[in-house]
């Protein structure tokens, strides 16, 4: 993509998506990446794309990570009951991560930190009814998005809750992106709920936005064995008003 844009000076880095400076909590590694990029200001005399030759250090990310909590035990009751029970088991760890960090990424949908149970009730109801076009009715949350794009951000708030919960658990191993997705979609009620919501978006076949949101909801490869994106995706699509 940089070859099409032709930036004046570009440093290609061999790091995972979401980690453009390579190593979390390694200030010197990050600064060395930046120094190399800034060095192009001295050396490049025409548009240049240089490869960064240093791989990210092993930061304990694991492809084989497994969650110590056995969440598959939440197997009885309605979907909302099972999802509430799963969230309840993760809540102490999510609270601990927020205490340690003094911050959270939760809340993009418009939900406050205390709204997690209401967010679960809303999302599970959408999964069960397949209603993906009408704004969910709640007295507790002022939504920051319109439907169906709201679904994508409710999903992300719930995923953030799960990610923050496992971040505080003991052990040096942390899951990489693939391990996180495998856990969510093979071991959690949340994963089951996400797929059901995506099915609802599939059925809203007269809405191009709904089909696009399905692709924004489910990571590639985790929607019934394939891509959640429609075959033809056109940007930008304005959210329905």
């Amino acid at each position, binding site marked *: 993509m940089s070859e099409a844009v*032709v930036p004046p000076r570009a440093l290609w880095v061999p790091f995972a998506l979401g980690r453009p400076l390579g190593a*979390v*909590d390694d200030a010197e590694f990050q600064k060395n990446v*930046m120094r190399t990029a800034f060095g192009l200001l001295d050396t490049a005399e025409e548009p240049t794309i240089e490869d960064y030759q240093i791989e990210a250090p092993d930061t304990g990310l694991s492809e084989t990570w497994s969650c110590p909590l056995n969440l598959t035990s939440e197997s009885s009751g309605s979907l909302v009951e099972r999802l509430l029970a799963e969230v309840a088991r993760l809540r102490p760890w999510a609270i601990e991560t927020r205490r340690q960090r003094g911050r959270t990424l939760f*809340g993009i949908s418009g939900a406050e930190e205390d709204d997690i149970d209401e967010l679960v009730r809303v999302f599970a109801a959408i999964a069960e009814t397949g209603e993906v076009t009408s704004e969910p009715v709640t007295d507790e949350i002022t939504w920051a998005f319109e439907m169906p794009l709201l679904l994508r951000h409710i999903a992300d708030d719930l995923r953030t809750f799960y990610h923050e919960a496992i*971040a505080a658990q003991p052990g040096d191993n942390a899951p990489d*992106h693939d391990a996180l997705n495998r856990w969510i979609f093979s071991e959690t009620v949340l994963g089951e709920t996400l797929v059901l919501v995506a099915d609802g978006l599939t059925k809203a076949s007269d809405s191009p936005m709904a089909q696009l949101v399905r692709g924004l909801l489910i990571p590639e*490869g985790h929607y019934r064995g394939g891509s959640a994106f429609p075959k033809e995706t056109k940007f*930008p*699509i304005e959210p329905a008003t």
Partner: protein
Amino acid sequence: MVRLSDLHPVESEHLRKRAEAMPAIGPGKWISPPALDQATVAIVSTAGLHRRIDPPFAVGSLDYRIIPGDIQFDDLVLSHISANFDRSAFGQNPNIVFPIDRLRELASAGEIGGVARWHYSFMGAMPDPSQFEETGEEIGRLMAQDGVDVAFLIPI
């Protein structure tokens, strides 16, 4: 940017097709900034970052959010639409995406001249980057007013 071979095959193929279809737009005007130890640096992110009080990004957003140079990380969130990148690193320490502390350290050490008062954030994942021309030129003027010499563009 990641190696395509490190991605899920479906995501890899998707990005390869996006790259092949991306229209060529460069190169722009060649500018040589002052020496780095005299240069003021601003971050331009395409990670969909913004302050918690700001409106989140929508699908196809072409606008931008301003991020003050004294931003505290408890005020910085992310509403990028893609589900296909790892957000846990940003949650752990936002410097890996928005390295404001690293810029401050480089400025303190005299390696760069200074840190801009304002930084800028866009939503990435846009197939045609030429659509950012108007807002790109706008933040260029804002950065010039802010005394910025170097724009450090960081994708997610």
